[in-house]
């Protein structure tokens, strides 16, 4: 098994407050890993440390064997990131934005031409490709950030709550796309509040609460941690986070 995401003692403090306690985690190649936790649990901070957008207070994060702090260029070559509120250049067209992103990843011309059209079609944006992004709806923007993320064919994709603004049809197509990609070897690290989607997609789930990773395991393993009365993943999640609060 090739480990694509590896954290060792990865921690973050904001002044006296600990946002993420030392985190040890391995995510394998082709695995779909879901990161669950209540608001303010430390999910986004962890993701920002994984993507190099925030410096850890301690520990390390390796992407495909490259330390994101010491060798960020090699690590980011493998990485695709979709934030919860992606920044898009309003005064570029969809196709221009794709070309710009391709330039940032130094893609060859012919690879770009081929991938761009395919991705715009996959995410149903071909009709709006030559319109300015400022005219896009929220859902179209989200789909464009997905399309641009996959341009350079990343081996690891980190996604932070990607479902905001997507309608049920688009949620379905994005889910299918991500699932298919993981079968081809893509590693997905996704933070979400949607327990139903996590239950449906995740190979493994990690539950984080108040900066501490409480449990990691498959959906069945996580479910087995809770009492018999807890049926769905939602019940289990609520029970586990409540117990953690009571312990503290």
């Amino acid at each position, binding site marked *: 098994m090739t480990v694509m995401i590896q954290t060792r003692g990865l921690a973050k403090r*904001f*002044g006296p*407050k600990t*946002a993420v306690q030392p985190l040890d985690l391995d995510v394998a190649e082709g695995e779909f890993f879901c990161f669950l936790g209540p608001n303010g649990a430390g999910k986004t*901070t962890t993701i*920002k440390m994984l*993507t*190099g*957008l*925030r*410096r850890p207070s301690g520990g390390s994060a390796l992407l495909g064997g490259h330390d994101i702090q010491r060798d*960020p*260029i*090699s*690590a*980011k*070559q493998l*990485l695709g*990131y979709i*934030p919860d509120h*992606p*920044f898009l*250049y*309003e*005064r*570029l*067209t969809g196709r*221009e934005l794709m*070309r*710009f*992103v*391709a*330039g*940032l*990843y*130094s*893609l*060859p*011309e*012919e*690879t*770009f031409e081929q991938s761009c059209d395919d991705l715009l079609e996959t995410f149903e944006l071909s009709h709006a490709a030559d319109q*300015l992004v*400022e005219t896009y709806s929220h859902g179209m923007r989200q789909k464009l950030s997905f399309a641009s993320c996959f341009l350079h064919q990343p081996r690891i994709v980190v996604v932070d709550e990607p479902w905001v603004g997507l309608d049920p049809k688009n949620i379905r197509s994005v889910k299918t796309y991500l699932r298919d990609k993981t079968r081809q070897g893509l590693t997905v690290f996704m933070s979400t509040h949607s327990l139903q989607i996590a239950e449906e997609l995740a190979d493994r789930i990690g539950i984080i609460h108040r900066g501490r990773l409480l449990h990691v395991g498959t959906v069945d393993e996580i479910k087995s941690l809770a009492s018999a009365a807890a049926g769905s993943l939602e019940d289990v999640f609520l029970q586990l986070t409540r117990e953690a609060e009571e312990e503290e």
Partner: protein
Amino acid sequence: MSRTLFSPLGSSQLGAILWAKQRIVRHTLASVQRESKLKVAFVSISAVALWLGIFLLSWSGFGLLGGMSEQALGVGALRLSDLVMARLLSVFALALFVMLIFSNVLIAYSTLYRSREVTHQLQSPITTATFFLGRFYECVTFSSWASAFLGSPVLLAYGLETGAPPVFYLALVAFYLPFVTIPAALGSLITVIVVRVVVAVKGSRLHRGVWLGLAGVLLLALLGFFRGRIEVPSFVETPSLQAVVETLGRTQSPFLPSFWVSQGLLGTATGDLGAGLFHWLLLVSNALFLVWLATLAAERWFYAGWTALGDGAGVRRARNGRGILDRFDAFLRPLPPPVRSLVSKDFKLFWRDPAQWSQFVLFFGIMALYVANIRGARSFTHDESWRALGTLLNLGAAMLILASLTTRFIYPLVSLEGRRFWIIGLAPVTLRQIMWQKFWLSVGSTSVFTVSLAVLSGWQLGLDRTAFALSVAGIVATTFALSGLAVGLGSLYPNFEEENPARIVSGLGGTLNFLLSMLFIALIGAGQAAVLLWGRLAAFVGEDAYPWVVATAVAWMIVLTAVTCLVPLRLGLANLERAEF
């Protein structure tokens, strides 16, 4: 071998960034077609008129100097006028250079650290050097267009008046880029270092009070340093051209880029191409060195500073009721609750954005320093006509600063409510109340500074009662008028999509606001001038007319202020009431 995207532009990543910027500029220019034709026409005509005005003023000024006697200097072949013009060119370049450094520090902070583009670019496999150079290009563009607009008519006028050869005009273009690059590199360098130091101080265990104390001592030392050096030009005391030449000569230093530009341009203007080339190479080599140095500094300190600034967002602010701003809220208690909340919110947003308040402090700080030193000019305080002229110039400067501040800070206030309009839209507050809140916020916050400056200036110059009252009334009226104009036009042409106030201002509406502010200042200034320069005017209209002139100036001020304040507010309110959010 396959061709990488943007490879003709050097690094494909830097090429991609520059290409995207060029596309954005192109789309932005195309979007002007969708703007109101009247607004576009007014802004275009005003811009051309402003450019022509500066050109004609400079041309006639240089013409006046060119006509001066050769014997006055008495140094043989060298004409006095040439020397004065050369020295003026040097002063102009120095003033531009200093202003560019200040503006570049502010621009670099928002471009390198505050922009949302930063996160987007840094998630890609881009080196810090490439990222920095991409952003640096933006800093140079942002900071230099205004200096090109204002500087080109002056230099063209100089070339025409001195009969400079065609190579001089080519040299203008060649000198411009390295000249604006140097302050941009210095500004970025200072910003990267300051941010790194500030975050290190924040993270250090030394008590914050100690750092504040050290900063205070440094500030006082700087003020002391400048206070000893700001001298009143000797030509004010002894108005001879010899003194002018000597005074302007103090700004010359062979270590300043402004000196290299002026000497290089003079060389090309007088046919000494060797001197021109030497100074151009000096400028280019220093520009390249400083860009390299700034890139090196960015590679070393940018990432640590940027991430630490991001971490600052996660640190808890002062406990409720204990922060400076919470204490300030106590002063707002007399206001009705919804208005109090809006004022408090606007102050907090302003205070927590150093890129905003630092400009405010900078503008008024420089002006206060100047006014505080004006007493040193004996001619200003003892000679009636110099005193009147000084008052008029001080008022004009304070009004111009006010115009730039209301345009920069007040005009975008309504637009900035954009995406959050649902919060106040659902609250029991009318749009009229919101607009008036912005208006009073502007009047209240800026009048503290403008009125203080007017009072300080009048006191320093020892004005008589009438002139003192009129100048203070003039600045109060201007504060009301420009606040109403900025809030009104900001509501008439809101940009609810943009979150960056600097970008909101850079649109056509913001430009229109500034131009109309300038027009107002010229019109109100004419009334003030009639009273303050009465000594010269009396010869034409008779001494008896003085009370009538004062009464007319006051009436003119009131009518002009009322129109400039109320008409835009009314139009803006009507526009907001029509809008759908």
